[in-house]
């Protein structure tokens, strides 16, 4: 049994502009010790999916209108709120998109880390402080003994993000949801954080759901990938397979438009048009207004094709392995080696 199994999740927002089907039938699973990358362009529903797992969607306007979220076999969607609170922060931890605003400026980082520990573990304050200190050391905060009593504003962005990770990990969660943990950070700090997450995963064996829009980060850190487009899964596969022979036209388009896979100075491949806003998602396949392979059939909901090894694609005209290779490789030759 997978650690987390999301089945046909639907989270909609009921707003003035109508019902926004921001997450509309998303399914994926995460195993123990596995890093799942969730990629997609801004507004495709990555954060909403993550928030839905712990039922943290602002309600109203949001509501989980369908689907199951099975965590170790228990459905979090129907779990009583008391039970859910035990899961939050204990079994599943979240690192939010904005490290700068997720820490409370009036408490020291030590107090904030300890609070999470005291809430979920039966330890006294001294023990909690010891655990917190240990965590801060492990995430690589230099001079952790003194910095534990500092306030968030005294730390840099990278340090704050590490504190967030320390807090998230202090309860030894089975699943870590990291929503763009490095987007606000510099590349060198990003490399530090990603390395740290990988090390910790190896020693703790937790599952990680890594949300990002950076395909480079995915390629370098994830075992499997889910590609979201307009609130639906376009494709899911092992990282190697996805980058080697993507089958969904959207994934192909994304990979082909990356500047680091093209010869310098060449015209980049582009996907026609723009990401539709949730008010005017097309019917049927939501990518069909921009898809070069679209046919009349695409006005119907796309079927799922299982290509083996957990490679699944939701499309009427998935690309064959050879076509995909040809399309993406033609560009990769001049790419950044």
């Amino acid at each position, binding site marked *: 049994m997978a650690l987390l199994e999301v089945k046909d999740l639907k989270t909609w927002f009921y707003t003035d502009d109508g019902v926004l089907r921001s997450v509309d039938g998303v399914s994926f699973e995460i195993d123990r010790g596995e890093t799942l990358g969730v990629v997609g362009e801004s507004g495709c529903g990555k954060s909403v999916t993550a928030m839905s797992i712990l039922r943290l969607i602002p309600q109203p306007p949001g509501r989980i209108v369908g689907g199951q979220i099975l965590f170790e076999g228990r459905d979090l969607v129907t779990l009583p709120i008391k039970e859910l609170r035990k899961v939050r922060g204990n079994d599943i931890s979240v690192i939010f998109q904005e490290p700068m605003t997720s820490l409370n400026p009036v408490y020291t980082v030590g107090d904030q880390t300890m609070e999470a520990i005291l809430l979920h573990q039966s330890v006294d304050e001294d023990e909690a402080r010891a655990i917190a200190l240990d965590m801060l050391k492990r995430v690589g905060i230099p001079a952790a003994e003194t910095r534990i009593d500092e306030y968030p504003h005294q730390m840099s962005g990278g340090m704050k993000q590490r504190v967030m990770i320390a807090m998230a990990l202090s309860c030894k969660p089975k699943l870590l949801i990291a929503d763009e943990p490095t987007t606000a950070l510099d590349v060198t700090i990003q*490399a530090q954080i990603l390395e740290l997450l990988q090390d910790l995963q190896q020693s703790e064996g937790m599952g990680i759901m890594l949300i990002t829009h950076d395909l480079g980060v995915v*390629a370098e850190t994830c075992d499997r990938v889910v590609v979201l487009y307009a609130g639906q899964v376009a494709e899911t596969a092992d990282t190697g397979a996805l980058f080697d022979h993507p089958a969904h036209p959207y994934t192909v388009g994304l*990979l082909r438009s990356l500047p680091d896979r093209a010869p310098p100075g060449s015209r980049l491949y582009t996907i026609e048009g723009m990401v539709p806003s949730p008010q005017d998602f097309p019917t049927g396949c939501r990518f069909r207004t921009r898809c070069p392979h679209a046919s009349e059939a695409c006005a119907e909901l796309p079927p799922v094709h299982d290509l083996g090894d957990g490679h699944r694609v939701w499309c009427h005209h998935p690309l064959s392995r050879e076509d995909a290779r040809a399309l993406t490789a033609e560009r990769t030759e001049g790419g950044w080696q």
Partner: protein
Amino acid sequence: MTAEPRPPVVQVKDLVKHFPVYKGLFRRQVGSVKAVDGISFDIQGGETVAMVGESGCGKTTAGRAMLRLIEPDSGEVWVSGRNVPDLDRDALRNWRQKMQIIFQDPYSSLNPRQTIGQIIGGGLLLHGIVQTAAEAEDRAKELLERVGLQPRYTSRYPHEFSGGQRQRIGIARAVALNPDFIVCDEAVSALDVSVQAQVINLLLDLKDEFDLCYLFVTHDLSVVRHIADHVVVMYLGQIVERASRADIYARPRHPYTQALLSAAPRTDPHKRRKRVILPGDVPSPINPPAGCRFHTRCPLAGPRCSAERPAAHRIADDHYVACHFYEDTTDPIDVTASSPYPR
């Protein structure tokens, strides 16, 4: 890069900008942020120079100081034959036609209360490129079409557009004045992958069409690799390495450039590399480290590095490195020598 030598359109010499830092009740000056601390480089006509470096290293400040959107403290910036810091107010206003800027944030860079026509056409009237409002409107329509938007959008307001479309409007505003030189400050960083590719293509096309040169400020090394002819690598207000694109990517010589390149994620899952993990964060620019500013994080640093500021050594045509140990960096620096976590 063109074969025949053209005089540089832009020449920057020893540009300096420090921001004073005040503290306490009486706002006493307690120091200064050395945001840009003596940088020099040229941009040839038709060329793109990329300026890369981590957050806070002074890229934006450098770009804006060159255009005098921020008053530089000292240094020279020659644009199309005139030294911008020397211009008086009226001369500067005229000369602004030659140098434009495209911003990172597509949301704050367009005035929410002006129509697209006013945003693009205003400068045309101001600089006497067209004489009447009707002509300005017509020209704005042409430009909109050129950047891939419908001409009839001139009567709309910015909030009606997506981020990528707004960025195109910002680009149309910049090229409207037919400048020689455009600063693109993270012009594609806020855009999604699919839109980013569209805008990069547009910028490349316009460069040839209008015979522009760009200073392309960004931290995204894959974009730099795609569009730059030359690369300037900054660290804490200073240039640490400057070379052609090919040299920077194939033969980086400064330890910082090497670390930066190695940290940049690549989209090839089959070639997962061991990264150079730099310890610690970028130090504060208020009291930057003495000597070589990089020595607190550098895997090669020796005693000399903390004492003496390294000069820019010319190691090839167009390739300059500011490092005392530049001779030891022909092979990428040893990764295992650096501890993965801050000391």
